[in-house]
């Protein structure tokens, strides 16, 4: 009986001893918000992902799976080419080399957090997180860990997020400007304007933009047809458009669906003026069977310059960089997006060096001070405190023309009064 009494105590003691022993081993993790034992190197404060010589940037993007060749691979190539140039010139502030730590999340929100956890201790910030759902999936962690990320997504929700460095305009602005162009310059006033949007936040953003434009420019949206991301058949939506006798259709879709919807409508004799949100386009569409229809009826709403236009400073520099660091790169609008994103991230890092602090807290602070020169590749974005941020209000409309590299030719740049009236709420 005596032995029985003391047994639990013995157990507890043994347990405690073992725990202490194991805890003594410590863990090799630069994560957490400890700042990684920040020290001072000359003037610039170091932190996780910056050891005084190299700045490491995390990239979470689809490098395999169906979305990879369209978005993930070209955007990441754009990031890489830009930072190759920066490194060849010595690096950030002429001395700190930049290294990209790339992780493949197959465009799956659920796989994004493990990838984030895997590299968060090794990176100073995230130079790219591709897409709205993956960004949503780690937003809470970014705030908790005090890390900055640049989303490769034009969602309006990012404008007021302190831990994000968004670039460009938003999906809403693209459609407001495009609608302004059609109504005021192309005589679509009084004609039925329609909308096809995928379900989800991205589709909602397109609808919000067109509805805002409808209110400002005083027109009615005749038909709003929606579909599920997994849909393969769009007969019902096309029939809705036919019944509405649509003269112009605004499309918020992904590239695979762009071909099916526009091609399917053409087969049924419906060829309205199409306006596509920036992610509706993929280079492969230019050589696909729907290309003739697209050339006649499609306007692509985005930002920037025609590929190869040497009169735009940013484009000229980019083409020179491609020739030097990735000669086999095909003309691709998503490459440009990645390149431009890297311009913004680079400017942020320069700002942090100027502030003398490349720790996580320092980079987070630098987001408020940074200003970025996009050299004509993207409209100007006013940064600052989250409440004062103002995204680009500019949209460039492109037509499809296989005779130019990249098959997209700049038609006109619009920054309408209506788009300037759009306001952004904190989430």
């Amino acid at each position, binding site marked *: 009986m005596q032995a029985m009494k003391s047994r639990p105590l013995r157990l507890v003691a043994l347990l405690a001893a073992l725990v202490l022993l194991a805890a003594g081993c410590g863990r090799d993790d630069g994560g*957490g918000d400890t700042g990684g034992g920040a020290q001072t190197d000359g003037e610039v404060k170091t932190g996780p992902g910056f050891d005084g010589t190299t700045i490491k940037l995390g990239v979470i993007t689809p490098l395999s799976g169906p979305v990879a060749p369209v978005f993930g691979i070209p955007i990441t190539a754009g990031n890489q080419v830009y930072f190759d140039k920066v490194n060849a010139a010595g690096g950030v502030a002429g001395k700190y080399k930049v290294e990209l730590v790339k992780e493949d999340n197959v465009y799956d929100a659920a796989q994004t957090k493990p990838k984030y956890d895997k590299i968060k201790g090794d990176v100073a910030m995230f130079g790219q997180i591709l897409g709205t759902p993956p960004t949503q999936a780690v937003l809470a962690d970014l705030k908790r860990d005090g890390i900055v990320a640049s989303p490769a997504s034009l969602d309006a929700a990012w404008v007021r997020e302190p831990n994000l460095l968004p670039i460009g305009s938003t999906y809403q602005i693209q459609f407001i400007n495009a609608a302004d162009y059609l109504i005021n310059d192309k005589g679509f006033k009084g004609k039925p304007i329609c909308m096809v949007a995928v379900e989800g936040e991205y589709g909602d953003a397109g609808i919000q933009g067109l509805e805002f434009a409808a209110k400002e420019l005083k027109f009615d949206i005749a038909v709003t047809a929606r579909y599920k991301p997994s849909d393969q058949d769009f007969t019902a939506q096309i029939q809705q458009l036919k019944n509405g006798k649509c003269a112009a259709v605004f499309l918020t879709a992904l590239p695979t669906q762009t071909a099916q919807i526009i091609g399917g409508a053409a087969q049924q004799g419906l060829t309205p003026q199409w306006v596509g949100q920036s992610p509706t386009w993929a280079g492969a569409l230019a050589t696909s069977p729907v290309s003739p229809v697209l050339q006649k009826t499609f306007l692509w709403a985005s930002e920037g310059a025609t590929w190869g236009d040497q009169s735009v400073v940013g484009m000229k520099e980019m083409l020179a960089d491609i020739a030097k660091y990735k000669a086999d790169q095909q003309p691709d609008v998503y490459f440009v997006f990645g390149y431009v994103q890297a311009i913004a991230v680079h400017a942020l890092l320069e700002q942090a060096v100027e502030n003398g602090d490349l720790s996580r807290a320092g980079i987070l602070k630098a987001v408020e001070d940074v200003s970025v020169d996009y050299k004509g590749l993207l409209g100007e974005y006013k940064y600052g405190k989250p409440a004062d941020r103002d995204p680009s209000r500019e949209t460039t409309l492109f037509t499809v023309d296989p005779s130019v590299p990249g098959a997209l030719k700049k038609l006109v740049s619009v920054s309408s009064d209506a788009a300037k009236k759009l306001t952004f709420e904190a989430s």
Partner: protein
Amino acid sequence: MTALIQRLRRPPLTTSYANDLRLFPSWTAKAGMLALAVLFFALPFTLSDFWLGVLIRVGIFAVGAIGLNLLTGYTGQVSLGHAFFLAVGAYTWAHFGGELGWSMVLWLPLAALIGAAVGAIVGPFALRLRGNYLAIVSLGLVFIGLHIWNNFESVTGGSAGVRGERAATIGPLDFSALDVFGQKLTDDQSFFWLVWFFVALGALIATNIVRTRPGRAMQAVRDRDVAAEVVGVNLARYKVAAFALSSAYAAVAGALLGSYSEFITPDQWSLPLAIQFVAIIIVGGVGTIFGSILGALFIAGGPLVIDDRANSIPLVKWLVEQGGMSTATFNQLLFGLVIILFLVLEPHGLAGIWFRIRNYFKAWPFSY
């Protein structure tokens, strides 16, 4: 000292029925539990956040798999609808924890209750259907669920998904940032304890159920439901109860998954997740609690390990570089193959292999 030597010499064989029913039948089992307890306390201080994240996911899958094993492994009701019940729990978190900010003391039991209630509604189908027919009906549940999650926007956020506060607090304890002796822990360190506490609790409850009267009734239903009814087992009661219990486990797992990810989308709760749970109990061992945890370790943790170590495994490295295959694709092929091999070669799963090894040493030196 002599007592210790004697105890070590005595082979830990089961010699009575009462001994067979004991929770920890031998000193080796007790030592094993002690070692696990040490790991439980020590791992957050030794592993990196990434590996803790892997183990958190494994733990969450283990809780769900224990539930499926109670239903499929012990009661013999094949279900492909487990993903649906996980979603029920996850959206319970999303609404009551993520949106309204209730304490975990409230939303977690609520998830279990709602899960059990939904399970009890579905349960009666099992009274009319058996085997493959039940599997197909439960499969339908996943698709009905997808429709609901995509359209019940006020709670699920539609197909865009819903983001919410973690709300993992019990009184002063916040499992997204615990304080241990003045040291502030990361969210993965803290959440690890939360999840594995529930794995232990879930395993304990399940073990207690299966080694007592209801467990024997459930196994009788599994082996032959008509015969079970003849000897006095109330079929309606046990089949429905098994569904309710299993769904409650799934809902708790779903709620923990939601709280840990802080963001859930409807396409998470589709067929692949349901299949994954079936794979876990097949690979781990049908009809064992312990196997559910082993299976989760293998099926939920394995792909992440391979993905992390892709560069140091020659075959994977070669396939990725030469074959143009991604590690994600490789994982799908590998784990598909593993399921087939387990079904054909080792129907008792990892737990079966473990039991054989254990029995060999138990009877040593007379193991033949």
